């Protein structure tokens, strides 16, 4: 007898019709579980459940399943036109019928009516104590029958273990799949595997057809090789381009995985066990960390070179080690302050006013007037402007407005030209001694000029006037456009 995958009759032979006393045209296309409901009485549901479980096992595993003894009363048409249940015992084997791609299309049921045998066995059981099997008992198959019963019990136990094992596979956080035969038909996979492949319906399909995007990525070849050689294959952080969303671009994932051969009782390799983890997140984190370490190294070395430069240039303008140490130290501290500001914002930037305040508070807040809108500086601009303001403030304290009692510094800034925004800063000193252009340009003013021009792509003008020093700095805010 043949069933389709919906468990409807697809065909049967004459013997089946005779045993069941039914007509072919009454059965074809009908669901078997409706035609035979397990009979009357308390055992009916269990009888039906066992039969259905066997069919489902064949459908899900693609392997045949046997039931040594199935108690299954069936309805029989009596000659007088009535229907009565006939108590029957069956021994049956359910074998999958597959198409070219390995998909189960039908179930072939080979049934033997063993009712007579069972009745005989029961009668013998009544005649003699159960523990002393007779020759007759053995002869008519009591021994065979017991063996069959014990196989049945074993099968049930194995079935439970198999289900527990499968539950473990299904729930493990790693991905798991079982591939069957030379075409690597996907026989089962767990939820993690389903997630990896974007929850496509791949069961019962060869891998080349089920996951076509893997072509040319080496995975098919590794599988073929495991099947051919029996040697397991291991992948570490292997990149895979995989379809995780329908119609979207392929996603790149990184996988740790193993392919292990599955052998049958004859030690022949019949499939591949796939098991692994998606390690994309940790691969990306490691890449990010490497980038950060490289960037850190770059910054540290550049900062050291900057400090080296400050030391060398400061040394050239100070013969006295004491004044050298003082000036050098204050320049390093200024650099360090700006770094502190940037660290607070995780190196995203700093506010212009805060940079100014940091560099000038040492000279007394009341002597400086800072006036302008909030302007966010990127880290490089903040570092440059920090050094520039430090030099301006130091010069003011040494020679300018902050060197005398009443002098003041007014710092105004604004943004000009909104189409091509420029930051205009004016540093104006008042109330100090009259100043004149120095004969030799010191490191401080060279640093200011170079920094504005070189690092900030801006311009600076310094005016030494009788009523005080003025510096006018213009910096493009959109460096790409500059």
């Amino acid at each position: 007898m043949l069933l389709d995958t919906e468990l409807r009759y697809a065909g049967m032979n004459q013997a089946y019709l005779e045993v069941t006393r039914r007509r072919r045209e009454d059965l074809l296309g009908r669901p078997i579980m409706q035609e035979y409901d397990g009979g009357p009485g308390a055992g009916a549901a269990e009888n039906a459940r066992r039969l259905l479980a066997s069919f489902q096992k064949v459908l899900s595993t693609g392997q045949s399943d046997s039931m040594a003894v199935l108690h299954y009363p069936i309805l029989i048409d009596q000659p007088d036109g009535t229907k009565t249940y006939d108590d029957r015992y069956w021994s049956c084997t359910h074998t999958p019928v597959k198409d070219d791609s390995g998909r189960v299309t039908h179930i072939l049921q080979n049934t033997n009516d063993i009712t007579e045998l069972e009745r005989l066995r029961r009668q013998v059981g009544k005649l003699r104590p159960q523990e002393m099997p007779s020759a007759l008992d053995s002869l008519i198959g009591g021994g065979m029958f017991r063996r069959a019963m014990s196989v049945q019990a074993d099968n049930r136990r194995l079935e439970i273990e198999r289900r527990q094992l499968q539950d473990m596979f299904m729930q493990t956080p790693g991905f798991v799949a079982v591939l069957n035969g030379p075409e690597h038909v996907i026989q089962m996979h767990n939820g993690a595997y389903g997630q990896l492949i974007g929850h496509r319906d791949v069961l019962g399909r060869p891998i080349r057809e089920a996951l076509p995007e893997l072509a040319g990525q080496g995975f098919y070849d590794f599988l073929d090789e495991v099947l051919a050689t029996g040697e397991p294959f291991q992948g570490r952080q292997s990149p895979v381009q995989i379809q995780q969303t329908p119609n979207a671009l392929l996603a790149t994932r990184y996988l740790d995985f193993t392919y292990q051969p599955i052998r049958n009782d004859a030690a022949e390799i019949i499939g591949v066990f796939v098991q692994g983890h998606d390690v994309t997140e940790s691969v990306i984190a490691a890449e990010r960390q490497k980038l950060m370490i490289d960037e850190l190294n770059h910054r540290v070395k550049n900062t050291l070179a900057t400090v080296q430069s400050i030391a060398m240039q400061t040394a050239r303008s100070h013969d006295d080690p004491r004044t050298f140490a003082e000036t050098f130290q204050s320049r390093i501290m200024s650099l360090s302050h700006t770094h502190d500001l940037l660290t607070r914002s995780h190196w995203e930037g700093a506010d212009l006013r805060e940079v100014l305040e940091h560099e000038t508070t040492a000279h007394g807040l009341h002597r400086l007037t800072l006036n302008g809108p909030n302007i966010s500086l990127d880290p490089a601009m903040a570092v440059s402007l920090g050094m520039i303001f430090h030099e301006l403030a130091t010069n003011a304290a040494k020679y300018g407005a902050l060197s005398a009692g009443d002098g003041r510094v007014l710092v105004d800034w604004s943004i000009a030209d909104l189409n091509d925004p420029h930051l205009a800063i004016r540093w104006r000193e008042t109330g100090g001694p009259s100043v004149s252009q120095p004969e030799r340009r010191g490191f401080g003013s060279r640093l200011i000029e170079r920094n504005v021009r070189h690092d900030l792509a801006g311009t600076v003008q310094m005016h030494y006037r009788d009523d005080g020093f003025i510096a006018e700095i213009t910096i493009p805010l959109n460096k790409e456009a500059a």
Partner: protein
Amino acid sequence: MTKALQGRRVLIIEDESLVAMLLETILDDMGCEVIGPDSNIDDGLKSATTEAVLDAALLDVNVAGREVFPVADALKARGVPFVFSTGYGEAGLPEHWRGHPTIQKPFTEGAIRDALMKAMNISLA
């Protein structure tokens, strides 16, 4: 001090002004004439291709977020010797440029002089 580099015209490409000033001072002490310093790749490429006389160049590898290699290619095509300067040392260079004279930040005058002389194939013998 040797005057082997006296009067040489040396291009500097370096995005940090303080580091550029240091290089300038060191080259100045060696008697070199400094071209630049250029703080970005575009200016550097212009100097590398349009400066009539260039004897050598000092190239920072990472210039304001861009790599200096187009300038290196242009100098190589002109036959102008050059030295890379980088925080990473030679390990920061792509395969292609490994083994090229390189100075690592922070640097000493001696290291700069030796690297330049190596690049220019000048020996003191």
